[in-house]
């Protein structure tokens, strides 16, 4: 399938679910979607179109928490990023980990670093942070404050 066919297919199939469609450059496309329709769109992109899941990026965009799911179409050299915006007060989204294993670890990572709850994740344990890290402190949030006054951490120059 060509680039146009793939993008047109996504656009027409999920007309109701897409908020914004940004065709940034020949290699990069950003699509903002409804958080509730994430699973069905990913199902289509990953299973039917055969895209490779690169990774997900969690961003604290001050007003809301954004997650970008990056997918690569290897044959046509295209990187599509699906963007969801979640409420900052209670960020929650469906898990992809039970659809394919590749999403398992990154959801655990975003969960502990940004405090996003992934509904239906089979094993939402900690991945990177140490065991003495307190609950409810999310280091990648913009309003993160140092909680351990004994810690010597690099605060930048």
């Amino acid at each position, binding site marked *: 399938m060509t680039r146009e066919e793939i993008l047109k297919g996504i656009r027409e199939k999920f007309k109701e679910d897409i908020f914004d469609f940004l065709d940034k450059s020949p290699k990069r496309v950003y699509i903002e979607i409804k958080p509730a329709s994430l699973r069905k769109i990913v199902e289509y992109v990953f299973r039917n179109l055969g895209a490779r*899941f690169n990774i997900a990026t969690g961003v604290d965009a001050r007003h809301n928490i954004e997650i970008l799911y990056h997918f690569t179409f290897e044959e046509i050299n295209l990187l599509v990023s699906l963007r969801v915006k979640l409420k900052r007060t209670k960020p929650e989204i469906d898990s992809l980990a039970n659809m394919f*294993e590749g999403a398992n670890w990154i959801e655990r990572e975003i969960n502990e670093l940004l405090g996003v709850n992934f509904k239906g994740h089979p094993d939402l344990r900690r991945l990177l942070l*140490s065991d003495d890290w307190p609950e409810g402190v999310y280091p990648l949030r913009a309003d993160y404050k140092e909680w351990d006054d004994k810690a010597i951490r690099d605060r*930048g120059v």
Partner: protein
Amino acid sequence: MAKRIIPIGPYHPLQEEPEFFTLTVEGEKVVDIDVRIGYNHRGIEKLSEKKTFDQSTFVIERICGICSTSHPFAYTRAVEDIISVEVPERAKYIRTIIAEGERIHSHLLWLGLAGHFLGYNTVFMWSWKIREEILDVMEILSGNRNNYAMFKPGGIRRDIKPEDIPGVIKKINSIVPTLDMLKKAVMDDPVLHARTKGIGILTKEDAIDYCALGPTSRASGIARDVRKDSPYGVYDKIEWDMIIAQNGDVFDKVVVRILEIFESIKIMKYCLLNLPKGEIDLNIKNVPSGEGIGHVEAPRGETFHYVKSDGTNRPVRHKVRAPTFMNLPTFKATVMGETISDATIILAAIDPCYCCTERVAVRNTKGKKLYDGEELVRLSQEKTEKIRRGRAKRCS
């Protein structure tokens, strides 16, 4: 049979990252595996948000000591994606040279360690010996054996002197005969076949499901290589082959890496001989607001960086995804059902990052018996020895 738990780590294994594996075994067979990482979490993503775009390049170069170029490469591509610029031609060539030199030394390092774990110390000695030549080459080109500090957004920091090139080519050529010998020694050895063929198979379906990358996926018959799929540097201007094997076992992972070294030598030599003249840097002063993605093929697979800028001189978000992050979970698919003596080489086969073998501990659930890393390596080496003796007996 009773289930026993074998903890391996936290200062695991074989490679430079501390990881903690919990192997559940029945007798000799591994029935479950769980991996705990994060012992070495340094918060580099957060740190990078506090540094300027230029300073970040140095911070992220220190993410990995072996593939230290792949991270700055992906990062600078992400920043260049925000600005939408193309770096000068000469800078592209030099970037490709550095990236390929790194792939050669990284694959050789892995091959040596894999040989060591299988009880083939000759392979270990030979491949580390020729790796030194490549490190010398890197020192001539960049001034450093590792952490080259060659990259910056918009170009490179240091030019290659034309008078260095003949000497470098000579050094690269000098390793080819040894490498050929090593290739034959590894690929035709019947004992090595017995130890690695059909062991730790990652099927094509699993590789897709786990989103495996790099040599790990290419050994399972998936044509996945960022250098071909989304060409950067000068990979689209050079004739080279993507190495693919079909079985997905440890042997195929070895084969893919060995053959890739030859391709890398080819690419590196072409770039050195056809280096164009011109600028090496765009002198980028400001990064506009926006977001960019950069991905490159590191020795272990795709390295992925996402950078978001708000128009100031610092990134507001910098996401780093190293290839091992996607390759590590594949243990679940490969180690299951194998024996403990094979587990070490399977865990090593994806080439996670090696160093602290001594800290591997094996004990039964009551904690009475204690093996250490040497013991596990010994188990693995003994098995090879047994096969070797068995063959010798049959032949005589």
